[in-house]
Every structure is written in structure tokens, then in C-alpha cells.
């Protein structure tokens, strides 16, 4: 039973369809995700390749992947706000955010593929992702750094109709999923086709495995994460990996711009997941306050505790505004295609959401654990999973926090004044 109900709001309003959708996702998650998330986190910690395929299948059947993609490609034909609502609710049911991240990656990046990729690539890949048979995420980070996207080293040489890729990617989500799911999948990947800097990069739909068969020249490793175990993280080496030109996404040497738009979209749903996890954490706190007594009184009777709670609650509400403001803007640009809104308009709103949401979530998790005390230090208490999972986004997954700050500062103060 939820303790935190969304307060009456005249600014953050949702349509009837959006509210019905939220209720339906919440019901699905209560039935299939909430009872299982701890078990998934535990099992996958023991064995990262123990991927919750059955839950993924159920989520696919419920239509929780490829939410904004066209029905033509097997997508759900929904808005980006609908996707945001779904991720918030999935993360509320799984605050380790593993399943939420699976869902958000497989909504954001297939949509980016639809925006910039070829008809053929969309017809082939998106239906499989929507059906829960393939994974499609983002592979940008390399050993020398993630934030410096323009400094990418993986090379792509064009030979006739095919690009030959050589290089290495690290800290990529889905390396295991691509191997375990029925069809396979891959990533929205960047490689250098031209000269130095951001103008020499192209984007590709790199399929490590398709139709159940592994491609040659793809050599994976799986990492041992400290949290969010239900989703694998790993790396792969590309040795003369062949990518057909139909998998080129957008224009050659324009890949940097395409991936930046993709990141904007992905970051919205990332932030959505963290606000869902935050809501779970807030409820854990409230239920604790209502039952736990110390020195003969509820611990929330100590102002040091209740005031801190109020501060965290305020940050949570604020993050929600950032997130939905960004999702509504994304709808204007990419769904409604309203010409008065441009893709670049998303930069600051997204940076705000992606910066504020994860940091609020992690700070909140830390506070909740302190309120719980020693119990939260044991593995029996599930709270630490809701701390370590979202922490991946503070560490820098899908965009480092300081890069978000840079985007905001650069936009408001002016690029020239930050040199």
C-alpha cells in the first residue's frame, strides 16, 4: 500500500489516459516485480548471467518496452511522458532499478534508432526488443573515458557496403542480456569514420547477436557490479567486426549529434527511474517513523530526523517536476513534432533532471539507512540495494553528474565564459 500519494497538483497534471496507464503499470509491477526484486538482485549477485528472463518476457507482454516507438515497428505508439511514467513505477517496484534500467534502455535507444536509423534496421530490431527477445542499449564508453565522447577511439573503416569496426567498449549495460535473450541484440554504438573530434564520429546499430547467432569479432567480458545486479554490465572488444551499411544510424560523421539527442532522451527516463526509487525510499522512511520508538518516542519526534525528512521530500518533489518538464518537452519535439521546439531546447531541462534525480535518490538512500541504523547495514534489509543501484547514475552512467552541471553552466552563463 503506498504511503506517499501524489498531492493535488495544478501544475504537474496528467491526462486520464496517463493516470490509467500509471495505475496499470503499478498493478503489473505489484503483481510481478515488487515480490521478486530482492530475489533477482540476490541471485544475479551470485551469478551475473542469471538474468530474469521470465520477468523480462512478462514486461514485454505487458507492452513496457519501446513505448514511444511506432506500432509499425511493434512499439507501443505512446508518448515520451508515458514512457517516463512507466519507468517511475517500475523503479518504485524495483528500487535496485535493474528492471527499470532494462526497460528504460530498451525504450530510449530503440526510439533513438527509430528517429535516425534506416527503415530496414528499425523493421529488424525494434520488434524483437518490444517482444522481450532482444536488448538494445547504448555503447559509447571506452577504456580511456566515457565523458569525452568526442575523443572516441574505436575505428570504423568502410569497405564497400560494410563497415569494419575495431576497438573496445567498456562499462556497457546489457552485455549479458544480448547473449541470453532469444534473439540477441546490441547497441547504439559510436565509432570513428572520419577525422579527430566530434565531427568524425558515426553511429551504428551494432548487433552482437542476431537471430540467436553471435557475430564474429565480438569478444565480451562481464563485470561484477556492486549493485543493480539484475542487469549485466560488461565490456567487449571488437576485432574486424562487420557492420552492414544498413545499420548506419543517420549520416556518416554526424553520429555525435545523433547520440547526444539519444542521450537527452535516455537521461529523462533514467531520472524517472531514480524518482521512482526515491518514492520507495521515502515510504520506507515513513513506515519506519510510524513504528520505531527510541527513548520512548517515535524517532520522527526528533526534529533532526523529521526536518531532514522534509528536506529530502522537497528534493524528491522537485526532481519530479524536472523529470516531467523534460518529458513533456521531449513530447513536443519528438512526438508532436511542434516546430517551435528544437532538440537543443532539451539540453538544460534534461541536465537538470539527470543531475537532480539521481543525487536526490542516493542522498535519500543514505539518510534512510542512517535512520534505520544497524539493521540497514545487514543484507537482510533491502535498503542498501536501493542505494547501490541508483548510485550507478551518480557515478556517471548515462552521463556524469558534473557533465550535467557543465551543460547547465555553459548554457546559462555562456560557452565563451567557461573557457
Amino acid at each position: 500500500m503506498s504511503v506517499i500519494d501524489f498531492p493535488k497538483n495544478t501544475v504537474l497534471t496528467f491526462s486520464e489516459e496517463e493516470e490509467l496507464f500509471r495505475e496499470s503499470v503499478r498493478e503489473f509491477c505489484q503483481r510481478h516485480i515488487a515480490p521478486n526484486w530482492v530475489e533477482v538482485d540476490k541471485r544475479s549477485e551470485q551469478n551475473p548471467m542469471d538474468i530474469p528472463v521470465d520477468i523480462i518476457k512478462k514486461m514485454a507482454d505487458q507492452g513496457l518496452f519501446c513505448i514511444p516507438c511506432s506500432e509499425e515497428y511493434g512499439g507501443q505508439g505512446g508518448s515520451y511522458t508515458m514512457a517516463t511514467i512507466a519507468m517511475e513505477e517500475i523503479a518504485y517496484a524495483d528500487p535496485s532499478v535493474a528492471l527499470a534500467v532494462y526497460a528504460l534502455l530498451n525504450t530510449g535507444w530503440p526510439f533513438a534508432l527509430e528517429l535516425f536509423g534506416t527503415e530496414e534496421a528499425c523493421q529488424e530490431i525494434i520488434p524483437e526488443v518490444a517482444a522481450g527477445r532482444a536488448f538494445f542499449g547504448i555503447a559509447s564508453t571506452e577504456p580511456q573515458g566515457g565523458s569525452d565522447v568526442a575523443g572516441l577511439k574505436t575505428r570504423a573503416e568502410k569497405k564497400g557496403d560494410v563497415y569494419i569496426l575495431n576497438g573496445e567498449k567498456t562499462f556497457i549495460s546489457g552485455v549479458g542480456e544480448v547473449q541470453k535473450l532469444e534473439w540477441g541484440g546490441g547497441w547504439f554504438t559510436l565509432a570513428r569514420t572520419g577525422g579527430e573530434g566530434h565531427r568524425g564520429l558515426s553511429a551504428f546499430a551494432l548487433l552482437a547477436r542476431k537471430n540467436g547467432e553471435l557475430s564474429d569479432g565480438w569478444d565480451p567480458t562481464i563485470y561484477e557490479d556492486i549493485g543493480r545486479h539484475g542487469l549485466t554490465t560488461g565490456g567487449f572488444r571488437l576485432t574486424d567486426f562487420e557492420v552492414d551499411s544498413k545499420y548506419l544510424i543517420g549520416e556518416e560523421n554526424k553520429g555525435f549529434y545523433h547520440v547526444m539527442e539519444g542521450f537527452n532522451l535516455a537521461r529523462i527516463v533514467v531520472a524517472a527511474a531514480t524518482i521512482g526509487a526515491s518514492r520507495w525510499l521515502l515510504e520506507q522512511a515513513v513506515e519506519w517513523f510510524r513504528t520505531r520508538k527510541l527513548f520512548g518516542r517515535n524517532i520522527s519526534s526528533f526534529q533532526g530526523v523529521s526536518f531532514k525528512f522534509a528536506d529530502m521530500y522537497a528534493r524528491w518533489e522537485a526532481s519530479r517536476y524536472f523529470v516531467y518538464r523534460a518529458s513533456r518537452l521531449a513530447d513536443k519535439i519528438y512526438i508532436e513534432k511542434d516546430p517551435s521546439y528544437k532538440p537543443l531546447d532539451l539540453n538544460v531541462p534534461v541536465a537538470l533532471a539527470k543531475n537532480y534525480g539521481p543525487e536526490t535518490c542516493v542522498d535519500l538512500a543514505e539518510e534512510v539507512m542512517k535512520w534505520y541504523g544497524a539493521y540497514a547495514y545487514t543484507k537482510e534489509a533491502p535498503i542498501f540495494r536501493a542505494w547501490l543501484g541508483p548510485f550507478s547514475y551518480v557515478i556517471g552512467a548515462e552521463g556524469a553528474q558534473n557533465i550535467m552541471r557543465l551543460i547547465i553552466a555553459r548554457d546559462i552563463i555562456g560557452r565563451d565564459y567557461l573557457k
Partner: protein
Amino acid sequence: MKIAVCVKEIYNLEQVKIVRETREPILDVPKKLDDLSRNALEEAIKIREKLGGEIVAISAGSPELRKTIKEALAMGADRAAIVTDFTESSPESAALVLSRILEKDSYDLILLGDASSDDYSGQMASRVAETLDLPQITFVSEIREVSDGKITCVRDMDDYIEVVESDLPCVVSVTNEINEPRIPALKDILKASKKPVENFSLQDLGIEISRSYEIVENLAPAVDRKQEVIEGEAAEVAGKIAEIIGREV
């Protein structure tokens, strides 16, 4: 087959809170489609999958019903006929309103939940069937067979299980255990808004509501449990429990 499913909007019972001092319920909570109504809809959808036809969702309630009925449409009803100014409800008046709407069409089958989860009154099937002069099959835990003109059901009664048969048209009410209602997906929810909804007023139906009974009070029972929390090592705790048992029995 033309199937009518009478559905009910109820308060989201989980969210209803009680004022500690006065024991009054706080009903400023959103409404939702009753679980048993969803069981009835799910059964209708299964029948339509086998025999084809049309499913009409029928309901009487508050203005909020305009939103709640979309749940029924999202689950799979083809269209809806609703009354949204029906607030002083009683079993008699609800039956009257539903029957007036049902009379406007000729249905092969009328499905309902065997009761609603807010008050478990369980009168609607009987009252509607009597008004429309139709046979009724209540407390159905399984619909064995439906064909043109006939229906066979299993009834889960208190002390016995019955298999009964009736000609169509017929009124059937279903138990909570008959099926697991589907959760509508986004595509279904988006489609729901485009499905036709006929909205009648009580005046349109020529009905004037008057309640024949008076609600004297509606309060939560006084909770006076000690609520003493005991924690500790299993052996220690077990000892304490044994002590309490010794005292009480």
C-alpha cells in the same frame, strides 16, 4: 453475441483512511473499477474471443465515472453506456438505472460481479434479472459453455457445487475466483479513449431517485488492541509467547 457487463466504480479502498478521533472514513480518494466488475469483463472478453460479438460496459455513478469507465474500455469493452449523476445510490435505485439502460438494447447475456468489494451486498444480479424478467445464474465460478441460445455454468455455493443450465438471454454473476482479469496495456488504454460512450442523465432515463433507508452512522470499529511489539532471538521470543499463552488460556 451481444454481451452487457454491468460494472461499478468504487472508492479505492486501500487509500481510504480513518480519522483516529472520530473513527470516520475519509472518502476524498480516487475511484476505480471494482475488482469483481473486472472479473465479469474478463469473462465477457473470453466469450467474445470464442464467439465474436460486442461487449457493452454499463454503469451508474458519479461524474468521475467518465474516467473510470475507460478502464472497462481499455480491458476490452467495445463501448459504454453510463449515467454520471447517480450519487445517492441504493440497490433498488441502481438496479432501476441499470435496467433502464439495458432495456434500450437486446442483450444475449448480462454479466456482473457477484457483489462489489466495497459492501458485498450482492443484490444487483437478482434485482436486474427480476426487473427484466430474465433467469439468473449467480455465484458462477466457471462458465462451462456458451452457445447461441444456451449457457452452462458451475455455481460455487456455500455447501454445494451446482452445474446449471439456462436459456439465453440470462443474467450471470461471477465470483472473484473465476479468472484473473487482464491488466490493460498502453495500446489498449490509448484505444479506449476513442471508443464511444453514451452518457445518460437520470432525467433522460425518466428516473427520480429516492433512498428508502437512512444511514444512521458509518464508522470504523473501535480498535483497542495493545499493539505491543516483541522482538529478539527466536528462543527468547518463543519463551515470551509461551508465557502470554499461559496467562490467557
